[in-house]
Structure formats: structure tokens, C-alpha cells
């Protein structure tokens, strides 16, 4: 792009405190007003989809952790589901429940980072550390379950890798009790802070039509007032057996689909996840946690797709088998990548600080964009 005399081109990134990873936002500004900002992605491309063709079906599981390191449980689950469909496997009910519990815990921990870093981007530093403290407790819980704190590698093709450790249930219930009352403190600390609300309300309003046209998904889509949740509407895994709400943006502080709505959806989703975990812990069935799977499964030639509700929206795994030990193709569609497309249009006319709010409200994770 060629700027006029009054305009300058400035690179937000690839190294910038608020780009949530290595992304470059090439921004054309006239003073504080942005004319347009174009995301320049690809700095974190590691060829993860190509790796899926070379490492064999079970061997790809740790790589899915690296696609979305903040919600690795959900990324694991999506890939496992896609391969299970290829193999026509039935997952034991206990494993389904454990995936749901671990996945929802992971969603809560991801949303803590999302809302905390959003507050940090708006300039308040305390909420981030409080959010990280809350996430730390979940990291501890998940570490007890599977031994890892970030890249869990928990789901397996046909089940999960570990059963519930002793005393784990009680710890989760204690944490959820704390979480539900802590969210009130969180709201007092930041969500309802007047400066915070004024910074986010009516900023970068994405209408229903635009959200659908640009293919937004997950909390970003629900923030625009569209009630679509893969867990509820497609009902995979153990989710059809739980009762939970799907929070949508209601324009409480401004217009439907503004940055505050996308933020509030995430806060409310944590409480819904908490409900799911409680129900799953109550109903947790006894039994096996793994189906019978060969060490090196060789699915029949064919293709399968699995859609899961990841923390950043719908995550789709498309796996094509050619009858050998390795997949013929693995493709991933991620929520962060979908959110990049709309930034160029939404950034027009925003102020520099609003662009930061817009990026933060999408809760993007750079490795998930580039893979």
C-alpha cells in the first residue's frame, strides 16, 4: 500500500506486546486514526499439517497440542474424533466423559488467559496475573490427570490415556466452587470497570451478517448474537447428556457484537463449562477408558471430518486415509485463522488503541493461525 502525505505505515509486530504471538499487522494510519490494517501472517508456520502425513495416526497426537497450545485438550479431542470416524471406532462412555471434563477445564483455563490478556491489552495489568493464578490451579489439576501442564497429549485414538487420579473429583469441585464466586470478584475488578467498558463498548461492532459472511466461529460468532455452539448443535462426545447454556452477545454495554460482548461471552462461558464439569463428574460412568485399537492402525481408504468446539471456535480436522499407516492428508481449520480475515475491514476508522482491543477480543493464538 502507498500512504498519502499525511499517512504513515507502521508495523504492529511481528514483535509487539499485544499481537498475541508472532503476527504482523501492517497498519496505515493518519495520526491516531487507522485507515486500514492488514494482518500479515505466516511467521509461525511450522508445516504441522504436512507432518500429519508422515508420522502415523497415533504419532500425530502430540503435534495437535502445538496447534493450539492454550487449549491443547480440545485440539487433541478433535483429531482423535476424526481418526475414530475413519476407523469406525466406538469410544467407551467413560472416555467420552473424561474428554468432556478435561476439555471443559481446558476451556476455562484458556478463557482465563483470553480475558486476562485482553484486560492487559486495555492497560490494566492486575487482572492478567489474577487470571494466570486461576489458570495455575487448573494446570495443577490437569497435571494430576495426565502429567503435563501445557501440551497435554491426553486424548488417544479410541479413548484417553489416563484414568481419574485419586481425590481428583473433590479438588475439581473445590475449584469450581471457588471459580463461581471468583467470577463475581472478577467482574468487580475489570468487567464492569467504567474505563474498561468505555474502551470496549461500541468498538468494532460486528453485525450478525458480517460475522457469518466472514466465517467467524466460536465465541467471536456468539459475541455477534448468533447462538451456534458445536457442542450443543452437533452433539458430539458426551455433550448431548449435559444441560448447559450458550451465552451470546446481547449488547448490554453498547451494540450487539462489540468488543465488550465478545469479552463477556468468554466470561459467561467459563460458568457454563463449570456446569458441564459438575454434571459430568456426577454422572461419570464406570468402565474402560480405551477402545481396542491396533498399535499402528490402518484405516480403510476414505476421508473423515470432525468438528469440535475449541476454545477459539469451531476446530475442524479433515483426515484422508489411503489404507497405509500414515494419513494421506491432514487439514485443520481453526478459529484464530478465521478471525484474521475480518480485521482489514473492521480496522478501518478505528483508533490505534481500538485495534489492540479488536485483536484482543478475537482471542487469537498465533500458532493456531499459521499451524
Amino acid at each position, binding site marked *: 500500500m502507498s500512504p498519502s502525505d499525511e499517512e*504513515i505505515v507502521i508495523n504492529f509486530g511481528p514483535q509487539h506486546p499485544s499481537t498475541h504471538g508472532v503476527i504482523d499487522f501492517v497498519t496505515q494510519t493518519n495520526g491516531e486514526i487507522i485507515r486500514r490494517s492488514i494482518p500479515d501472517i505466516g511467521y509461525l508456520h511450522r508445516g504441522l499439517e504436512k507432518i500429519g502425513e508422515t508420522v502415523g495416526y497415533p504419532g500425530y497426537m502430540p503435534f495437535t497440542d502445538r496447534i493450539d497450545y492454550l487449549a491443547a485438550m480440545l485440539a487433541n479431542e478433535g483429531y482423535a474424533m476424526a481418526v475414530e470416524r475413519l476407523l469406525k471406532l466406538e469410544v467407551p462412555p467413560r472416555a467420552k466423559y473424561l474428554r468432556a471434563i478435561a476439555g471443559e477445564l481446558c476451556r476455562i483455563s484458556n478463557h482465563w488467559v483470553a480475558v486476562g490478556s485482553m484486560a492487559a*491489552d*486495555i492497560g490494566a*495489568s*492486575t487482572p492478567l496475573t489474577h487470571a494466570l493464578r486461576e489458570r495455575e*490451579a487448573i494446570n495443577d489439576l490437569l497435571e494430576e490427570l495426565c502429567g503435563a501442564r501445557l501440551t497435554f497429549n491426553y486424548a488417544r485414538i479410541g479413548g484417553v490415556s489416563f484414568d481419574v487420579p485419586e481425590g481428583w473429583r473433590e479438588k475439581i469441585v473445590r475449584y469450581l466452587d471457588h471459580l463461581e464466586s471468583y467470577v463475581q470478584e472478577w467482574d468487580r475488578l475489570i468487567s464492569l470497570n467504567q*474505563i474498561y467498558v468505555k474502551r470496549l463498548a461500541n468498538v468494532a461492532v460486528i453485525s450478525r451478517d458480517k460475522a457469518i459472511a466472514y466465517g467467524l466461529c466460536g465465541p467471536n460468532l456468539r459475541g455477534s448474537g448468533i447462538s451456534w455452539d458445536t457442542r450443543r448443535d452437533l452433539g458430539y462426545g458426551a455433550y448431548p447428556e449435559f444441560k448447559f447454556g450458550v451465552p451470546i452477545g446481547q449488547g448490554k454495554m453498547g451494540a450487539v457484537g462489540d468488543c465488550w460482548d465478545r469479552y463477556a461471552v468468554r466470561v459467561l462461558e467459563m460458568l457454563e463449562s463449570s456446569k458441564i464439569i459438575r454434571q459430568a463428574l456426577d454422572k461419570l460412568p464406570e468402565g474402560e477408558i480405551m477402545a481396542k485399537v491396533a498399535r499402528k492402525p490402518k484405516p480403510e481408504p476414505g476421508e473423515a471430518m470432525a468438528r469440535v468446539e475449541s476454545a477459539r471456535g469451531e476446530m475442524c480436522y479433515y483426515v484422508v486415509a489411503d489404507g497405509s499407516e500414515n494419513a494421506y492428508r491432514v487439514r485443520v481449520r481453526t478459529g484464530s485463522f478465521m478471525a484474521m480475515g475480518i480485521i482489514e475491514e473492521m480496522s478501518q476508522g478505528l483508533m490505534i488503541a481500538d485495534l*489492540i482491543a479488536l485483536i484482543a477480543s478475537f482471542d487469537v493464538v498465533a500458532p493456531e493461525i499459521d499451524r
Partner: protein
Amino acid sequence: MRITTALDSTSLTRRYPKTALATTLFFMLALPFLLYLVLLLMLPFNRPEALDAVAQRLGWDLGHSPYRETWYGVILLVEGTIVSLYTAVFAGVTTWVERRIAGRMQSRIGPNRPGVFGFISWVADAFKMLFKEDLIPAEADRLLFRAAPYFSMVGLTLPFVVLPFGESVVVADLNVGVFYLTATSAFVVVGILVSGWASNSKWALFGAVRGAAQVVSYEIPAGIAIMVPVMMAGTLSMQGIIRAQGGWPWQWFACQNPAAFVAFFIAVTASLAEGNRTPFDLPEAESELVAGYHAEYSGFRIALFLMVEWANMWIMGALAVTLFLGGWQIPGVSVEMINQARGTDVFPTLIWFGWQSVSMLVFAVKTWGLVVLFIWLRWTLPRVRVDQMMSLCWKYLVPGAFACFIFTLFWVMVPAPVHLVSGVVLSLGVALLLVKFALRTRKNIAQVKGARVDLSNW
């Protein structure tokens, strides 16, 4: 659920939480206070006669010595050094205090290793800054890039000439003290502008332009709000304004006059903006402009910028305390009592020194209270946007300050008993609000049930 870390078992702060709090408070007050105590002890020697008297006791005849002026000059030099050192010591101690408080607020540990409860960390930081590479970007304007921190330093140091610390402890009680202070402290923004321009970086330029717009705008409501106590006291001298107030809260200007009460908040908000503190830290907005005007600075030059930022808090606090909160006035002790206690000797009596120290302590405690408030705000509030910052200034603070100004024009004609009544009513109201705040806080804390994850350092 309690997360334990390797630090827990060894951390002094965890084993002695009350001692840690007491030590923090002690260092907060003691170190800056001690510097000024030396100044207080040297105070009598400011007069050449006192110097002669000391020399006589030692058996020298200084009165006819050619070195009389030299000795006098040495004493003034030492005093001047202490005053200029004060900014560095205060800024250093404040970084430590701020990090301690921030650690507490953010339920993390904060500095706790070097020295007692991490107290030496600010000295270590200063040394680290000294030894860092002093980098000047290739395309920068080298002369201006080097000069910029000094502009800011001058803007920081000059106001200390008129800032009082106690009943008699002030460098120069200028009769245009308030004007002098607002004029000289504006030098800081020259440093910000020059550094942003000289860095030849887009981020720095953004920060500098934001800084200039912000500081210049907010000087207007600050200037008008400052005129309210000036009118009530009828003088521009800092000491004169304090002497016109009293020790008890209802004798403070902020409580005497409803307009001054409002003007106090306007002045504090405006000085937050002038000092680039959150929620007005736009010139260096980390999440937007990386580091704003000092993005390209490193080593000791950035240390100077940061020092200015922290030491500015003392100026902000001391100015508000002087103008609105009764300065160093001791409750129940009038200025006449202190003056009578001095005696007629060349050297003041011990009682006089005692009252002076108490007045210094009162001033230091009040100013530290405001500084801690600024720190509290910084770690609580998000940042406002540029247009919101401007509209707050021009739409609310400037008209508000004008209204206070005009109200005070009439208020000074009101008889004294009304001042007393309004003082008592306003200070009671403030006390009630504080109690309500404390109760609300207690309720909020009780509301968060369940397992608390506690990583706090005190």
C-alpha cells in the same frame, strides 16, 4: 487449594508477614525522611552567625577568617546535594514500594530477595542500568537523543526548590512558589517531545505527540484548580498556603470549601495525567506503543526517564498535600507554638527540633498516602483512549475547574464560622465514605468463598 512454590519454604516474607509489612512501611518513611533530617540538623548553619558561633566554641576565629564564605558555601553545597539526591532516593525506594504493593495486589511474590525483603533491589536495578550498553539508534539525532533525559531531569529537580518538607525545611520559600512549580515541572514534557523526535522511531514519535498533547491539555485544569487554594490563602508562597490552613482535617482547604474539595480531585486527576501515570499512561502505553517515547532508550538514559516518572509522584503528592491537605501542619500545634519553642539563642532548642521533625513526619505520611493511592490506581485501572483522555480534560475538568474558581471568588467573602461548619460537615462526610468503603471491601472479600489460591507475599 494452595499452590506451593520452591520459594515458599525459604521466603522470609512468608514466615514473617507482619514484620515484612512493618519493614516496608519503615523503609518507605525512613529513607527519604532521614535525608531531610540531615537537612534539618544543618538548618541553623544556613546563617553565617551560627557558623561563627560553632567556630568560637571550637576556638577558631572564623569571623575574621578569609575562609568564612568558603565554609558557608560548603555547607550550602552539601544541603543542595541532599535535595537533589532526594529525588534519586525517593524514586528508588518508590520503585521497590510499588513493586511490593503490586506483588501484593497481583497475588504474586514481588521483590523479596536482595537485602531485607528485597529492599536492595532498587540499588541493584540502578547498577544494572549503569552497566547496560548505551545504545543510540543509527538514524537518531544523536545530540537531541542524548539531551532529552536531561530536560526531564531538570523538570524533576527544579520544583524541589519550593517544595516544603516541614515547618522550616524548604530550600527557598519563593513568593511566587506555586507559579514557579507549575512552570518548571513543565520541562518534563520537553524531554518527552525531544526524545520522541530524536529517536527517529514511529512508536516513539506517537508517544511523544501523545505526551505533548496530554501534558499541555491537563496543565490548564491543573492550573485553574491550583488557583482555588491560592485564592483562599491569598498568597502564592507554598509555605504561606500551608500556614493559612490548620492541622485538623476540617482546617484543610479541601474540606473548608466545597469548591476546593472538587478542585482537589481535579488537581489530582490532572497531575496524574501530567505525570503519565495510569489511567493516563498513554505516552508510553506498553500494549499499544511498545514503550512510547522511550522505546529506543537503554542503559542509564532510560534509568533517568524512569526516575523522573517515579520521583514525579512525590511532586504530585506533595503539591496536593501542600495546597489542599494542610501540608505539614501538626494537629493541635500552631505555628506560633513552634516559633516560641525556638528560643532566642543562635541555636534552636531541642523542643523546636522535635516539633520540626514531627511536622516533617506529618508531611511525609500525607504525601506517601497519596503516592500509595497513585500506585493503587495504577495497578487497578485500565488505560483510557486518546479521545477519551482529551474529552475528559476539555469537557469535564476545565469547566469544572472554572466553576470551582468562580465559586471560590465568592466563598472568600463568606465569614469564618461558615468555613468551620463546612469543614466539619465535609470531613465527617469523607470519614463516613471511608467507613462505607471499608465495610464494602469486607463484604466483597467475604463473598468470594471456596479455596483461595494464595501466593501473596505479605
